[in-house]
């Protein structure tokens, strides 16, 4: 049997909104094998960040189960969660707002170690901070710098060092490179990959950039308005995309190659509608080019069409 670090079953999160329930997540299921990366892609408002935060119980799920290392963590108390949290960490999107501007690099990195009482000796703590900075490629001279003195790439390295400081097994990377320039982006992606190989980390990699997940992930899940619409291995998803939304998403990505003829893109009409008080029909029906009568009757379930390839569409 596969060694799964994480299993998510029927996870939903509904927020209360003015005019009813906002369906941020609706019945999401997936598993993450130890040492692997699951990429979660989708556009703004599809619920991808909500997934990341709900798994860590930074947001409480409305219903569903989150099984981490064989333990259902949805019912755990705050104290029990605190013991578990060192194993599950998160790296945030914006290295400008996720760091405390009044703390130095060293203070930021040592905080989680001290909170979890992992190292008490001051000298050992300094050594651990130096080791972590070395691990993420931050020069020692920045140890007493403040975040505003550093560029985005270095700030993101602090965020990574802080996540690594408590020896996690699993990290949620929530758009870790979207705020960075391309040349810096590649530096951070390579760093995350290297750390995974070295430490056997498991990642959930949340992004809107399909080229990035392609480079990074083993499996990919595509989200649309809180639902998982397609899930497959990277080769399968990029080689044989099945859901009409996935196809449009893939064809919309500009490719940095020269082409004599203009590339034919699938252009989706309309925009993502409001996830408040959803109708019964398939959520993608309004923008879908292949919509048929069946699609309006109810939401299609996520079904296996080929081994390991799941699609939620009645008319693929």
């Amino acid at each position, binding site marked *: 049997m596969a060694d799964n670090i994480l299993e998510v079953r029927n996870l939903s999160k509904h927020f209360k909104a003015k005019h009813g329930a906002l369906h941020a997540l609706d019945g999401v299921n997936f598993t993450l094998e130890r040492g692997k990366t699951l990429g979660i892609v989708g*556009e*703004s408002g599809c619920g991808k960040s909500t997934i990341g935060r709900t798994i860590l119980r930074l947001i409480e799920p409305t219903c569903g189960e989150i099984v981490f290392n064989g333990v259902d963590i949805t019912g755990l108390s705050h104290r029990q969660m605190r013991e578990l949290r060192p194993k599950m960490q998160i790296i945030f999107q914006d290295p400008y707002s996720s760091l405390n501007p009044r703390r130095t690099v060293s203070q930021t990195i040592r905080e989680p170690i001290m909170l979890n009482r992992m190292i008490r000796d001051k000298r050992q703590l300094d050594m651990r901070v130096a080791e972590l900075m070395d691990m993420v490629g931050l020069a020692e001279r920045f140890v007493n710098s403040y975040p505003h003195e550093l*560029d985005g*790439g270095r700030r993101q390295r602090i965020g990574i060092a802080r996540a690594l400081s408590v020896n996690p097994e699993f990290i949620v990377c929530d758009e870790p490179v979207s705020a960075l*320039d*391309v*040349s*810096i*982006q*590649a*530096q951070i*992606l*390579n760093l995350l990959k290297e750390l995974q190989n070295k430490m056997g980390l498991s990642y959930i990699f949340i992004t*809107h950039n*399909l*080229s*990035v997940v*392609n*480079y*990074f992930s083993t499996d990919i899940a595509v989200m649309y308005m809180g639902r998982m619409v397609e899930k497959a291995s*990277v*080769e399968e998803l*990029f080689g044989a995309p099945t859901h009409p939304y996935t196809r*449009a*998403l*893939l*064809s*919309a*990505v*500009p*490719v*940095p*190659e*020269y*082409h004599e003829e*203009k*590339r034919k*893109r699938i*252009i*989706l009409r309309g*925009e993502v509608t409001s996830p408040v008080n959803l109708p019964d029909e398939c959520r993608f029906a309004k923008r879908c080019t292949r919509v048929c009568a069946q699609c309006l009757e109810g939401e299609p379930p996520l079904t296996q069409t080929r081994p390991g390839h799941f699609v939620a569409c009645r008319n693929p």
Partner: protein
Amino acid sequence: MHTSDVMLDIRNLVVEYATVDGVVHAVNDISLSVKRQRCMGLVGETGAGKTSTALAVMNLIPTPPGVIRRGSILVNGYNVLRMKDTEMDAVRGKEVAMIFQDPMTALNPVLTIGSQIAESILLHEKVSGAEAEKRAMNMLEMVGIKGTRANDYPHQLSGGMKQRVVIAIALCCNPHLLIADEPTTALDVTIQAQVLELIDELRENYKTSMLLITHDLGIVGDMCDEVSVMYAGRIVESGTVKDVFTDTRHPYTEGLFNSLPNINNRAAQLTPIPGLMPDPTDLPPGCAFSPRCRYARSKCRERVPEAKWIGDTHMVACIAYEDPGFRIERSKR
């Protein structure tokens, strides 16, 4: 080349900003031209000087702290840097219009979108208010928004729709030259595809020339005829998209391509450019890219590389090419 074929001609432009930390050398002696009805991509990372170049063309560099030290800019024959403010008002919007990066901040939140489009029409054309409003509604329809929404305020629209409104304002007086500064960076991919398609279509209909500023080489490949690559305020390579994409010459351009994960080639390893962009108040001597360049040699640090033309359309500014046998890795493949 006949001058009337050139819509925008920038010669030896130097833009500086005086700050407390010293003089920021934002644009350092760049020359570039956009041919009539063509699309030129201007590519580079944060701080390369792309937006300063665009603002200089609009004569909108905030002064102080900014100052245009040197250079000339001709927009459809008008020498914009020599113009008085009142003269410039007639050129802006009519000859050259700009689409800004962030549609959330480019619109006035307390005016309806219809009136913001009409404002621009009233400024440039002798029409009645009612006529301008009618044309504003037509413009909205053209960019794919129902004309009845002219009375909506910006907060009632989604990001993609706001950017359509910004495009409508830019195109309502049918300018000859459109400057788009990262027009889709704030948008989702499927919406980006819609907006790019819209710009392409309108450009075709109105025969507009365009300077497209972006950091995304993929967008350049899809939209542009020519491309200039900027680094630390200089153009390091320029040419047709075919020249630059298939016969890349400059080490920085190569570095950009190697940093991009390619959706069609998963096995390709990412080779990031080491180090960081130099501090624009303290640019390194010689070639500004040399500290990060894997091919750098001692003479690269001694003088600024000159533009070297390797074809009718293809220019590279790199000292290593003085050695006739020099090749970058990408061109060996």
